């Protein structure tokens, strides 16, 4: 649905994007991670037709963003990293105004506004002036505004920045609901755990280059260098752990076994059958407390991939 190839952008002497490549399949939630100044907002602004690229191509729904901006604008809903609201307009009038700006037929504008207020749980505040809403409510209202023309793609720049935990959870649930409605969603965020929890695809950008991109599971697997298992035993004495490590290492199907934080961590192949190892361990007399797959931690991925930028800063 979104395809970016070789995208380049400079602001004076500063390089914002250098040959950026990534794609977002339809119906996915793409988490766009990167440190400050990495190029997230520039990329989103190019996709939103607000900034022209210096080179490369960016398409949404197959339409080049820099050639047919008006067709692209009908496909996208854009929520910037700030919420600009008008004073002296009610939330209902606010949404009706944007529905009109997006060419929603006049007879549908009020109905659309009511439907969206219900979606973002602001029906009770329909008559309230926008500037009296809390930050979380304003953020939800801005998301509703991005939806007035029922776009297929949502570009959300830091949608949860500055929100308290409750508002953040509400926003997360709302985004999940939008995915269930079939929207393709690109979210840029600094909040790594939130991206890890919410997104199905991950892209990490650093100094204008995409340094990691793919389905979340693949990114996390690559982060831990393959498939790993963690086994915790009831008896954590060195002797017991050592015996278990030796016993496992002698098996031909385990690549490596090591003791990490009073537990065993194993590197195994893609076709490894977990339940067979568990059964054999129990039969061998080891009391197994926990037996889990180790998935990578996105925070670690983020820190490892963007460490160069931090080091240069």
């Amino acid at each position, binding site marked *: 649905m979104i395809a970016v190839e070789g995208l380049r952008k400079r602001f004076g002497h500063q390089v914002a994007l250098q040959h950026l490549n990534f794609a977002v399949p339809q119906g996915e939630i793409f988490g766009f991670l990167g440190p400050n100044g990495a190029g997230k907002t520039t990329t989103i602004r190019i996709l939103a037709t*607000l900034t022209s690229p210096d080179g490369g191509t960016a398409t949404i729904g197959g339409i080049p963003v820099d050639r047919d901006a008006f067709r692209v*604008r*009908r496909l996208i809903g*854009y929520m910037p990293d700030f919420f600009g*609201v*008008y004073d002296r307009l009610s939330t209902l009038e606010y949404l009706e105004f944007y529905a009109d700006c997006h060419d929603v037929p006049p007879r549908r504008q009020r109905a659309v506004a009511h439907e969206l207020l219900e979606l973002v749980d602001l029906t009770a505040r329909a008559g309230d002036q926008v500037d009296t809403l809390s930050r979380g409510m304003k953020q939800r209202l801005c998301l509703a505004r991005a939806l007035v023309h029922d776009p297929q793609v949502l570009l959300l720049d830091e949608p949860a*920045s500055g929100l308290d935990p409750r508002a953040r959870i509400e926003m997360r649930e709302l985004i999940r609901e939008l995915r269930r409605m079939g929207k393709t969603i690109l979210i840029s965020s*600094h909040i790594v755990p939130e991206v890890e929890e919410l997104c199905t695809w991950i892209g990490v950008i650093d100094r204008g280059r995409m340094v990691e991109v793919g389905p979340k599971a693949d990114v996390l697997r690559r982060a831990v260098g393959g498939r790993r298992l963690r086994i915790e035993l009831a008896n954590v004495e060195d002797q017991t752990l050592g015996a278990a490590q030796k016993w496992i290492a002698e098996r031909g199907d385990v690549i490596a076994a090591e003791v990490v934080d009073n537990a065993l961590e194993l590197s195994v192949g893609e076709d490894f059958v977990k339940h067979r190892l568990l059964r054999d361990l129990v039969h061998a007399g080891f009391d197994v407390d926990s037996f889990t797959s180790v998935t990578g931690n996105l925070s670690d991925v983020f820190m490892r991939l963007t460490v160069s930028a931090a080091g240069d800063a």
Partner: protein
Amino acid sequence: MMGSTPTSLRRLVKNPLIVKDGLSRVRTWRAPAVIALYLAVLGLVVYLALTFQLAVFRGGFGFAQVGRNVFTAIAEVQLALVCLFGPAVAAGAVSGERERQTLDVLMVSSMTPWAIIWGKLVASVAFILLLITAALPVFATVFFLGGIDFEQFLISQLVTVTTALSIGAVSLFLSVLFQRTLASTVVAYGFTFAVTAGTWLVGTVLTQMAFAQAQISKGPIGPTGPTGPPGAHPLLLISPFHALSSALQNASGARLGLQPANVLLSPGGPAAGGTAFEPWLATVLFQLVLVGLGIFGAVWLLRGRRITLLQRSPAHRPALPPEIEHPTP
């Protein structure tokens, strides 16, 4: 980058910005306060001018001359008030959107740069037109004194409305050009003063100097002079203040003789074989040119993303607070 033609045409009359800005404006205490102040000033001018005129012309002139002079006075004051309020309502139209951080969202909608600029212009000028309309009863009262015919009345309103439009269009252009409303407002006031009062003041001084020079070097002026009078300075042709006084004092033939420029520029008007362009016509055409330049310039700036002077790249945005940048999991 333009939308479909039917949509563009529809936006001429049904533009959401007109409704939204109109609602936002009239929902403040400032709107009725400005209208009240405006009418109070005009009413005071009528009272003072009428008192003064009746005292000065007691027994000398009829009500027609008094009516003409009072009408001219309130027309000039109304124009001054339009020059005062015009930049205030238009110079923040786009920069205000930028400061509220709503311009990007508007640009991503189906609104074309034409539709945005047109909506902003109409919304801004509509308030000035409301002021002008609200003052019509005041003008009607003076109109009953006589001395002004309906054509003169129409010319005075035409000059005022086109001046309001040009101030609005140029202020809007400046509002797109400058990042901050303060900067665009200051420059808009400077521009407004220059092309309205400035042209009048400088044009009058230069004309008077030429007038004096002619007197010194060539003897008496006027129809009996050796070479006829020197022409008024061209700056006067584009001054709406001069256009008003010229149209209201000249057309009915009873000049006060206070402004030699009026006499010199179009003696007798076209009908008498004088200058082809009446000052009011030249002024109206000049204001319409400014309207066109203002609108096209604003659209050009907005369409080309040359949105502001001193615009910063997204990468230069101020950093978020640390707790937002690096939240604890």
